[in-house]
């Protein structure tokens, strides 16, 4: 998809349902203003976040990944965030060791009552990612298509006309 104008960071945040997601919700209902660059994905617990979620996000061109969970001792599942803490201590260090810029992948504790804190976390992270610039290192070579033809001169575009095939919409009961 072509992007016009200046680049804006795209951040994905994996928020645990019981604490961080509720905290984000509180920020919203309290009408707090914070950077709009974050896309939230709700998970039951920060311990559910598979390192692949983070790596896949980076591979698809996301500029920053946040994982946020309950404060230690407050996990709804008792110990999920403790596991997460161990896992992500290792993962963060490994990625930075490999050369992924420090600050692209971050972790936080935000509780359900911490709407203000959530907004601050997002503001801080967005500013850091804006400074780092677009993520390039793990991005997979973008798929080729007519719009990317300039990227690879060995390709010739051939346009084919196919009769439009309207997809059935659930609202009209699946008529196609």
């Amino acid at each position, binding site marked *: 998809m072509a992007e016009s104008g200046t680049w804006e960071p795209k951040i994905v945040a994996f928020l645990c349902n019981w604490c961080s997601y509720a905290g984000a919700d509180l920020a919203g209902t309290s009408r707090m203003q914070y950077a709009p660059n974050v896309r939230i994905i709700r998970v039951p617990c920060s311990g559910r976040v598979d390192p692949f979620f983070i790596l896949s996000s980076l591979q*698809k061109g996301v500029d920053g990944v946040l994982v946020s969970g309950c404060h230690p001792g407050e996990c709804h599942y008792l110990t999920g965030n403790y596991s997460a803490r161990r896992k992500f201590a290792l993962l963060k260090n490994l990625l930075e060791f490999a050369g992924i810029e420090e600050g692209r992948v971050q972790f936080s504790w935000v509780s359900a009552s911490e709407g203000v804190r959530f907004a601050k976390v997002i503001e801080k992270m967005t500013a850091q990612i804006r400074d780092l610039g677009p993520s390039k290192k793990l991005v997979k070579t973008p798929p080729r*298509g007519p719009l990317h033809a300039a990227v690879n001169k060995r390709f010739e575009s051939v346009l084919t006309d196919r009769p439009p095939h309207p997809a059935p919409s659930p609202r009209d009961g699946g008529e196609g």
Partner: protein
Amino acid sequence: MFSSARIVRKDRLEGFLERLLEDREVFAPVRKGGLVTLEMIDSVRDVILEYENTKESPKAAVFPQRETLFGYQAEKGKVALDVPRGKEKEQVLFGIRPCDARGLLLLDRVFGGDCGDPYYAEKRAKTLVLSLGCVNPNPTCFCHSMGGGPCSPEGSDLFFLDLGDRYMVEVGSDKCEALLEDEAFEDADEKSLALSEKIRKETEASMTPLALNENLKEHLGRLFDDPAWNALAETCLGCGICTYLCPTCHCFDLCDEAEGGTGERIRVWDSCQFPLFTQQASGFNPRPTVKERFRQRIMHKFSYLPETQAMLGCVGCGRCVIECPVNLDIREVMTSLSEGTVPA
């Protein structure tokens, strides 16, 4: 069988290669990161010809490990396709070994024929094979037992043999007519012809043939259910080194790599040694363990391919012998299957 021979004096070789580089891609053995590999060269000075064999076989020049078949973009009911344009330049595979040149012949049969692969055919048509004979074969080489030989010109457009201060060049096809006009080539003299014959005979005689069953194809067919396979395959790790480094192995997978409606269909190397190779959607796998997969490799190379393509699926390059992490030696396997004795 091969038409008039030529001579190229060694001090003229560099000039020849430089002229090749002017309007062709040239792949030659180079030293890179401690290994000898076949790479596209920018400079003739990178080329090394005192070497055993390249780490990987040249098959990637006509059958790349990752190849985009087409790109696509679906938009508003229309599908736009990006179809790769062909190679602009001819590619010369210079200094590859006779076993690897023969390997390309097997690939020609597999990717040719009635279901010809246009991607392979396009690259192959633009490929010139200028091979270099072996005068000091590695003890792990067994090309002579696989229908080839250290000084076999089979599969080469031009076959070079080191005579000391010059190369004898045999012409294997008419693809090289333009190349032969280069000033580096002189007519071969009687002395050179005699010397090349002598070197060929001596080199071939220096290699001990494997004791293989004369009717290997049928013999192996009878051994399919033999318990011998259990012991033979026991140490196999089931990795893909043997298949990926092999000049004749050619299995592949087709994948779509896409985001939304935009993507590309690619062909990638696959290996019969990987568990997923024959995994079925139901979950059933007809080759569930390393034993079945190991047996498959041997049967395919020495029984099935001789049946379907009238050619062995092995050219005796010895890479699998050298590179196997557990030193599973295909020569030992074939010998013990031939005589019916297997280590316990």
